[in-house]
């Protein structure tokens, strides 16, 4: 049914495609829907619930019915609208929601049970017996969904682009083009987007004239002018899908979908992304998004072959495809007369125009007369005959109240029923951002009202439906937007294009033709995808679901993939009819992004796979990799967890590392520790305020350990701070807490204590840091350092010295997290790798052994040192940790006041203790809960939990730390850890398992 000539298709490019396995042909420029129509295919899918036959209803984004799955395998795309799928050679599409085949769909039996499946039926059933609900649900679930998800990872890539502009124009129809031209000519930075493959909007699909020539020609030349302007960007195949706060507009550009799935590099692609999300920050937005033609609700109005009048015309005009042989037009307004004329021009025999009004407008009458089309006024379609597609339409007279006569006056044979129920301006984006709507009673539609944002609507989106008005409002919106964006220049004045003035007669408020048969409205569909009928709406109201939001949720009206673009307003109208309240009072449901569905891959952009989250690497990272380290994620850092040698298990490797650190030399990459350079005369005051202990007496070159609490008194971070100069300190923090502590200190300084003269600089990354510990550490250090005295007197525990180590500029700290003599050597990061390899080479003779975080944790647990975040969880105070001596009584510090609250100062809080299992080989799982009186079955009263637990090679048995209620006074008590399948007995001990006197530390 392809017309011999005309249309915007490229007949020189013939494409082969398949639909449900059958081969067809189409042309470049076709959509899948157009090509199917050209091939005479009418049945394309099944509805969601009742599996009724579905055809093609529209020619654009609003399509509720023609839902298809395109391609198979990893590139498959479910739930596409055939009306938006551009044809390419080799395209293969299938129907969704039909099994085993579209023609013989098993689930169409649902249709027989339709009377049993009214809105919300599942809330009333499937409850007995309770035990069977699972099985019921399994069946319900099997019926769920439309298309199928791919089974393999996506072969395509996606990305994002930020874009800033003065004026963003959404929609490239006559209004949008006019707005963009006007704004662009002023020199403003303009972005024009349209979701179609070319600009022109409705002009591409109708035969309106501008300056005496086809409107589409004007659109082409307007697009050309725009393309030539500096600072104007025209994005086609690009949908504005969300309008967010402060004029942030999200676009999705489909860059390669029209080319089909990537097959090779030779298919004309640039290796770029399949789709791109543009994030536009616009000073001004012009919404020229046009309008969607809506349907009228009557019995069997869902049959394939029932179509929007404008869409029918569009198929003829734009795609040279005849959507039927013999058409009947059913309308309540003038716009369908042009469509009727276009159909007739295209060789469709138009049997009649059925107009619900007593009489059409003058222009409209003339159009019908010009084509010799019979106009039947005061009538409405009341039923459609034909199952898989329209065979005839019954019409009846409608009275003033909108009720059809009881018996049909006539049945007209036809295979196309083109319907126009009026137009809904596309107000979606306006509403996303909180814009209000007004109800235009004359045109029976919602139009944009007040908005808090710098946004204006033009053309059909503003409820202006005549072409001259669209152009005029577009020019005005473009000029105003540029001006409001602060552009001073005015565009060169030009002769405005002229379109014929139109004088339409008012539309009739007819949304629904109630069936005169009792129960007839079962089959009068409002939401074509979700099978919501007029009777469902009546039922919802009857049951009290009368708010528009309840109606939506009870019936699922407008909740399908088309989000009710053509059905919401008729639904509201029927609701208002049933309630006897005006539509404006009934209101709409909330418009939400996205305007049309948006690919998840595109939303994620590049932040997937290796880019999902940055991996932070220390200067020594690649050495660790080469050495075969197993890494642990600590925040964004990768830290070596342990370094297994050939064939070693984790336990073996860790035992070896632990023993080496206490018997030879252990080497740790400590570069990830947070480091904050603190300078300024009030530095010590800051330290006093944020640490629980006092800092006044710390000498230059000395270090001190400190605990920080939140204002709630709970431990927040810990670390060692060293005094470098009179007013100069270096604070270290935990690796994971570095950024948090830095911004927390800045926050206090800037917001609470601006009077303090202190400057903080993060130097975490400035310094690479190697920790060298163990009995051989000093010897190795002495060998390497040139000008730093390292003996216990010159550089005692908790002292720091600056100089050269192995010729590298270095700071050497005598601090220890292992209880061994330990040196932490900081060198500028560029030398981190050099330092590390020198240490490894020079230390070889002493048995130097690199160790990872697991060994680090065991060594410190042997000494009972805490890890903030492991022994603490936001509910633990310094006193709970047994560090009460570090809590100054004299000064105030952050969190101090909280410690004296009644609950925080209780004696029986959970306190840090050690645990020794009865069986020395038994390692308690970290996180095991502790009880003092085990019972055979839960529930059991828990008194605490294990925070850290390891096998310690140095102690020669398992050790654990735990937080136990009143733990400090329970030393020696026996407790139990009830675990799945067993119960472990343990004794509470002091949290110190190795060298309790600390002789090694100072040695």
């Amino acid at each position, binding site marked *: 049914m392809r017309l011999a000539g005309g249309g915007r298709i490229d007949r020189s490019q013939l494409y082969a495609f398949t639909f449900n396995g059958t081969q067809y042909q189409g042309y470049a420029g076709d959509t899948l829907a157009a090509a199917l129509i050209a091939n005479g295919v009418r049945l394309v899918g099944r509805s969601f619930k009742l599996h009724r036959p579905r055809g093609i209803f529209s020619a654009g984004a609003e399509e509720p019915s023609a839902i298809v799955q395109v391609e198979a395998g990893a590139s498959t795309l479910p739930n596409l609208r055939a009306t938006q799928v551009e044809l390419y050679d080799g395209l293969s599409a299938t129907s969704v929601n039909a099994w085993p085949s579209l023609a013989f769909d098993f689930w169409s039996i649902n249709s027989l049970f339709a009377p049993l499946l009214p809105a919300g039926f599942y809330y009333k059933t499937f409850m007995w017996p309770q035990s069977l609900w699972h099985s019921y649900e399994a069946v319900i679930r099997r019926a769920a969904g439309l298309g199928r998800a791919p089974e393999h990872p996506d072969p395509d890539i996606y990305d994002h682009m930020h874009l800033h502009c003065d004026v963003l124009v959404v929609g490239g129809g006559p209004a949008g083009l006019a707005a963009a031209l006007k704004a662009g000519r002023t020199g403003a930075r303009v972005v024009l987007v349209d979701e179609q493959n070319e600009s022109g909007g409705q002009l591409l699909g109708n035969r309106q004239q501008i300056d005496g020539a086809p409107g589409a020609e004007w659109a082409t030349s307007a697009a050309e002018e725009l393309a030539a302007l500096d600072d104007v960007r025209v994005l086609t195949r690009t949908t504005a899908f969300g309008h967010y706060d402060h004029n942030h507009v999200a676009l999705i550009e489909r860059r390669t979908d029209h080319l089909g799935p990537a097959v090779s590099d030779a298919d004309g692609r640039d290796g770029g992304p399949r789709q791109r999300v543009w994030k536009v*920050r616009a000073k001004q937005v012009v919404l020229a998004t046009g309008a969607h033609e809506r349907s009228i609700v009557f019995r069997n109005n869902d049959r394939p072959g029932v179509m929007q009048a404008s869409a029918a015309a569009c198929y003829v005009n734009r795609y040279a495809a005849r959507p039927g042989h013999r058409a009947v037009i059913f309308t309540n307004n003038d716009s369908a007369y042009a469509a009727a004329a276009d159909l007739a021009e295209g060789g469709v025999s138009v049997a009649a125009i059925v107009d619900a009004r007593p009489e059409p407008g003058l222009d409209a009458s003339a159009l019908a007369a010009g084509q010799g089309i019979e106009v039947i006024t005061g009538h409405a379609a009341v039923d459609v005959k034909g199952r898989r597609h329209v065979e005839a339409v019954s019409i009846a007279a409608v009275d003033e109240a909108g009720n059809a006569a009881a018996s049909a006056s006539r049945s007209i044979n036809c295979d196309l029923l083109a319907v126009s129920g009026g137009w809904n301006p596309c107000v979606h984006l306006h509403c996303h951002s909180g814009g209000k709507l007004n109800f235009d009673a004359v045109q029976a539609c919602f139009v944009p009202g007040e908005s808090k944002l710098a946004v204006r609507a033009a053309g059909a989106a503003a409820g202006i439906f005549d072409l001259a008005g669209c152009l005029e409002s577009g020019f005005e919106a473009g000029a105003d937007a540029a001006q409001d964006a602060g552009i001073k220049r005015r565009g060169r004045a030009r002769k405005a294009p002229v379109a014929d003035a139109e004088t339409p007669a008012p539309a009739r408020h007819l949304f629904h033709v109630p069936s005169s048969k009792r129960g007839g409205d079962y089959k009068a569909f409002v939401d074509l995808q979700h099978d919501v009928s007029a009777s469902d709406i009546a039922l919802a109201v009857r049951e009290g679901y009368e708010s528009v939001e309840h109606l939506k949720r009870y019936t699922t009206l407008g909740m399908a993939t088309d989000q009710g673009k053509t059905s919401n307003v008729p639904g509201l109208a029927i609701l208002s009819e049933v309630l006897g309240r005006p539509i404006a009072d009934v209101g709409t449901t909330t418009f939400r992004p996205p305007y049309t569905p948006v690919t998840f891959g595109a939303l994620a952009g*590049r932040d997937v796979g290796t*880019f999902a989250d*940055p991996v932070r*690497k220390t200067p020594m990272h690649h050495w660790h990799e080469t050495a075969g380290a197993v890494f642990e994620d600590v925040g964004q850092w990768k830290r070596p967890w342990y370094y297994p040698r050939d064939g070693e298990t984790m336990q073996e490797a860790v035992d070896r590392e632990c023993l080496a650190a206490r018997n030879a030399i252990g080497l740790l990459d400590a570069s990830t520790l947070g480091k904050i350079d603190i*300078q300024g005369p009030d530095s010590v005051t800051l330290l006093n305020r944020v640490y629980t202990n006092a800092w006044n007496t710390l000498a230059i070159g000395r270090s001190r350990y400190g605990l920080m609490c939140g204002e709630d008194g709970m431990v927040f971070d810990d670390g060692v701070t060293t005094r470098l100069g009179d007013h100069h300190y270096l604070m270290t923090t935990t690796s994971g807490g570095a950024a948090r502590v830095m911004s927390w200190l800045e926050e206090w300084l800037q917001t609470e204590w601006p009077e303090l003269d202190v400057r903080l600089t993060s130097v975490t990354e*400035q310094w690479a840091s190697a920790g060298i510990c163990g009995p051989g550490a000093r010897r190795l250090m002495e060998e390497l350092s040139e000008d730093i005295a390292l003996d216990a007197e010159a550089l005692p525990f908790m002292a720091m010295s600056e100089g050269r180590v192995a010729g590298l500029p270095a700071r050497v700290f005598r601090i220890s997290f292992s209880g061994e003599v330990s040196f932490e050597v900081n060198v500028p*990061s*560029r030398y981190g790798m050099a330092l590390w390899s020198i240490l490894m080479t020079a230390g070889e003779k002493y048995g130097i052994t690199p160790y990872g975080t697991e060994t680090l944790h065991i060594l410190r647990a042997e000494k009972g040192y805490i890890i903030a975040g492991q022994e603490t969880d936001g509910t633990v105070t310094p006193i709970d940790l047994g560090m009460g001596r570090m809590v100054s009584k004299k000064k105030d510090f952050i969190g101090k006041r909280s410690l004296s609250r009644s609950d925080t100062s209780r004696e029986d809080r959970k306190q840090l203790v050690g645990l020794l299992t009865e069986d020395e080989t038994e390692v308690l799982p970290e996180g095991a809960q502790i009880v003092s009186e085990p019972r055979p079955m839960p529930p059991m009263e828990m008194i605490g939990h294990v925070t850290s637990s390891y096998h310690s090679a140095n102690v020669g048995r398992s050790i654990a730390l735990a937080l136990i209620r009143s733990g400090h006074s329970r030393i020696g008590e026996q407790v139990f850890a009830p675990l799945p399948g067993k119960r472990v007995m343990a004794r509470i001990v002091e949290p110190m398992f190795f060298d309790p006197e600390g002789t090694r530390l100072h040695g």
Partner: protein
Amino acid sequence: MAERYQQQSALAHFGLSARATSDQNESECGVWLGEHAFRGQINLRGDPGKKTFMDAVAKVTGSRLPTKPNTSAGPDDPQAGPRALWLALGEWLVVTVPGAEEETARSLAEATADCGGTVTDVSDARTVIAMGGRHARDVLMKGCPLDLHPAAFEPGACAQSLLALATVILYRGADPSEADVSAFEIHVARSFADYLWTWLEDAADEYGVRIIEG
């Protein structure tokens, strides 16, 4: 002795020098990328309202510190002297050629000691990625929310922002001779450099990437 050991830049493991092309025809590729390793970077604090401080700094660097947000002062070519980037009210990043940082930091510290200056050498905390070409701006737009249109971000402009998931300081260099070609310097924390470089190469792929000697 230090010379015996290699200093390693943040991107050393990518072996960029080996990949660098000597071909100078910039218009051939959409984007060029390289590392300016070991640039001197000094964090400087002080009161822009104090004339003594501003003068003292100017004496050391040869140009007055910028006080307008998002701008820099000093020569585009670091060989010609230090360049200062505005970071915040009372905070700048002084950028020098490799090796000059120690001396510059010392001089700055001495010169501003009496007028409340604070100097911290952070040359090793970040590396600098150089990027330019016809599509350099497009690559940045993929990950940076700033308005980088030449009218909004002119040569000499600098800003701190996000690029992909990394915090960066962005500096726009003087325009290369050819039209439509821009040049940027991206300061990024050393530990994020591997991530950001990989990201940039990937994002620039569709435009054609050439590696240049830093």
